[in-house]
């Protein structure tokens, strides 16, 4: 972890969320805590419906917490009392992609800084082209529409659009879920390169334990609903991560430690899912 | 006349406010009720103060009393209901009986489609009402000519909807049935027909709305009875309460038939709850 960064420390303290308290009172998050250091690449692994997205929504400012608190560099982001307000400090890259289809790649990427009037149009365009070029020669696609790009390229442009706002925290919500093995491993390579170029605190949400172990410095395994941090695992693989690490013994050892716990949560979530449908 | 079905009412951002909490609790759209009351009051006031050309128009109260006093019990009023309904039902049902099979044929038989579809496509934009003169010329009685117009109104819509529906059947659904050894007849009955039902329901929902629109105009132009005629005669004879009564009755009749059609279609497609 590079500690040159002193921004982007995320402190989650007994975060709790209950949907529709008066009615079905679904407890999505309960006593969920984690201390994330500045610049740390954290992966959160958990079955569907375990509250991963609820936590992400609270951090991003889309939803309010019913108990506990989340602070960014000591400033309260989310708590029962604070009005949730999204902002460029913590930008989300969405699961199904949220590039604006009606804007070109360049218009998408400069949208943030120009809307916040942080940069003039020309300055924003220059910065955008530079960043796109460094993140895998995407600048050549500047004038194309998202619909004309492959899903891999769309995902990377969306990451660049987020980074253009100099966010303190980058929130990735299962970004590579629908990709097949080969394109997924290519995207892992790109993400790690971009993270090395632009070190930020990263919160990576996924179902895929192998992906979490390969990408992250720290992996949190969440229990099925109500979501709580079940286990925390420091991934001491060296950086930069390479493909052959996927078949190394340290990696295998790390996987052995958590795979049983993750599988157990998956089983519980699956059976609860079916009971609810019965 | 063919407008889209309204989207659901979940909105982008809910302003808290008293009414929405009240609405959530009681499930009644209070603001809507307020709007309707305001509309009726506005109408009454405009008439009272003879503003904006409302001089020749009766207020809601006056129309209502006129309705209860004379028309509710008058046989001829209910006869116009019956006449209009008879024409709508005849034209609409005939359009479905001929339109659905033709739509299925056009959807499944490549050669027939490439032959007939362009002709249908050319006739579709011609407004149904424009057929009135030819229809009067062609059919021996006025009744038949109006029924023909209502038929044309619903026919094109159902044929084209069913045709599109048949062509969007999932290939896997057909292949799976073949793997399981089902014959062509069974495939048609248990796979093709059910999967076309949603398209049929869209065609019928739009069709019934068009049919009511068309019957009113046809009656105004060529009919000698029916709600359209009643409204037109109210206008010609300057008894404007009848114009209002006619319009509201047509509104109810249209609403009732649409509700009937959507109830029927809901019964036909229980799995689409």
């Amino acid at each position, binding site marked *: 972890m590079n500690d040159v960064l002193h921004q982007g420390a995320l402190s989650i303290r007994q975060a709790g969320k209950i949907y529709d308290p008066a009615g079905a009172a679904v407890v999505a998050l309960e006593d969920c805590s984690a201390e994330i250091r500045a610049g740390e690449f954290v992966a959160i692994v958990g079955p569907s419906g375990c509250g991963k997205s609820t936590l992400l929504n609270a951090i991003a400012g*889309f939803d309010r917490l019913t108990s506990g608190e989340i602070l960014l560099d000591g400033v309260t982001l989310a708590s029962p009392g604070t009005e949730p307000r*999204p902002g*460029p400090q913590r930008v*989300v890259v969405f699961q*199904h992609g*949220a590039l*604006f*289809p*009606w*804007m070109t790649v360049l218009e998408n990427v400069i949208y943030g800084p120009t*809307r*916040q009037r942080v940069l003039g149009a020309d300055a924003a365009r220059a910065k955008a082209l530079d960043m796109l070029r460094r993140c895998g020669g995407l600048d050549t696609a500047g004038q*194309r*529409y998202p*619909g*004309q790009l492959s899903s891999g390229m769309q995902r990377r442009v969306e990451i660049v659009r*987020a980074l253009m706002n100099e966010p303190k925290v980058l929130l990735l919500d299962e970004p590579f879920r629908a990709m097949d093995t080969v394109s997924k491993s290519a995207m892992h390579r790109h993400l790690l390169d971009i993270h090395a170029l632009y070190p930020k605190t990263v919160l990576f949400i996924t179902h895929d334990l192998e992906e979490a172990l390969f990408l992250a410095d720290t992996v949190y395994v969440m229990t099925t609903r109500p979501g709580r941090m079940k286990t925390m695992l420091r991934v001491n693989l060296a950086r930069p991560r390479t493909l052959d690490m996927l078949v190394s013994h340290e990696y295998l050892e790390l996987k052995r430690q958590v795979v049983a716990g993750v599988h157990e949560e998956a089983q519980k979530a699956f059976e609860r899912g079916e009971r609810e449908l019965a | *006349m*063919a*407008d*889209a079905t*309204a*989207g*659901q009412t979940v909105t*982008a951002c809910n*302003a808290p406010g008293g009414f929405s909490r009240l609405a959530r609790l009681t499930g009644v759209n209070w*603001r*809507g009720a307020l*709007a*309707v009351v305001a*509309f009726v009051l506005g109408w009454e006031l405009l008439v009272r103060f003879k503003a904006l*050309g409302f001089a020749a*128009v009766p207020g809601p109260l006056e129309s209502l009393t006129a309705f209860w006093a004379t028309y509710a019990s008058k046989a001829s009023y209910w006869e116009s209901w019956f006449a209009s309904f008879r024409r709508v039902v005849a034209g609409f049902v005939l359009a479905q009986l001929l339109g659905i099979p033709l739509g299925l044929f056009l959807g499944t038989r490549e*050669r027939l489609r490439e032959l007939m579809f*362009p*002709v249908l496509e050319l*006739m*579709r*934009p011609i*407004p*149904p*009402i*424009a*057929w*009135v*003169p*030819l229809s009067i*010329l*062609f059919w*021996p009685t006025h009744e038949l000519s109006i029924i023909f117009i209502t038929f044309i109104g619903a026919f094109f819509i159902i044929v084209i909807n069913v045709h599109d529906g048949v062509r969007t059947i999932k290939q896997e659904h057909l292949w799976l049935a073949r793997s399981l050894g089902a014959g062509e007849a069974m495939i048609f009955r248990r796979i093709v027909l059910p999967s076309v039902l949603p398209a049929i329901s869209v065609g019928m929902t739009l069709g019934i709305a068009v049919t009511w*629109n068309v019957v*009113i105009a046809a009656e105004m*132009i060529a009919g000698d009875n029916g709600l359209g005629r009643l409204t037109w005669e109210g206008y010609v004879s300057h008894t*404007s309460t009848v*114009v209002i009564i*006619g*319009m*509201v009755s*047509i509104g109810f009749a*249209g609403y009732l038939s649409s509700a009937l059609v959507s109830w029927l279609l809901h019964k036909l497609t229980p799995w689409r709850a």
Partner: protein
Amino acid sequence: MTPLQTRKLWRMGAGYLIAFTLWYLSVKWLPLAAFARLPDPVTVLKEWFAPEPAYGISIFTGAYYKHIIASTLRAFAAFILAVALGVPAGILMGWSSTFHDYAAALIGLLRPIPPLAWVPLAILLLPAAEVAVVYVTFLVAFFATTLNTLVGVKAIDPDYLRAARCLGANRRDLLRDIIVPGALPQIFTGLQIAMGAAWFSLAAGEMIAAQYGLGFLIMDAYNLIQYPTIVIAMVTLGILGFLSSAGIRLLGDRLMRWRSGAMGLHR
């Protein structure tokens, strides 16, 4: 042109030819008075393209274009009014729930009344028959535009709104950058339906209450027993309806280049 396309073209031509001959034979030879009364296609075509048409309406006569222009002006006046009022109303309904509750009730109240039932009242209320016809045409186009715009706003993926808010967009930015472009495809679907419906109502309105226009021409030709002119006016209405819908589709494709761009998706 691939063999597939040429075969399709041949069949289309054959289809038109068969329809044409069927029409001609049934009018000319079928021993049925009902058919005999109808004008046959050859007479209609002759009349339509005659430099001196028997009843004064052909592509060479000014009167023909006077009616066309009258109808087209009315249709587009009503259509543009419907778009100018309907699109903002639809967006507002999708954007604020208070406005939605009020508007939805009023629309629910007025929509079941078939537009043409308004004609008598419109004539009474409005200064001229002309305005009444345009009003009736406007009404049906307005409902189609508003409801489709509302559906378009509702169908926007909430992630787009959230992404924009992350990037610092305020409410006005959201409306201009996300809501309007996002709802545009469905708005254009609504515009096409509105245009079709506008021509439907216009024709009927003109037949009942106008002094000129294609609808009027149809009834006038009927009363003056100029039957071929009825067919000419009907087909012209059909062509105008088709052309205006095609025009809207073209406008839509130009405005939403990003959608056609999506077609060239290379995976």
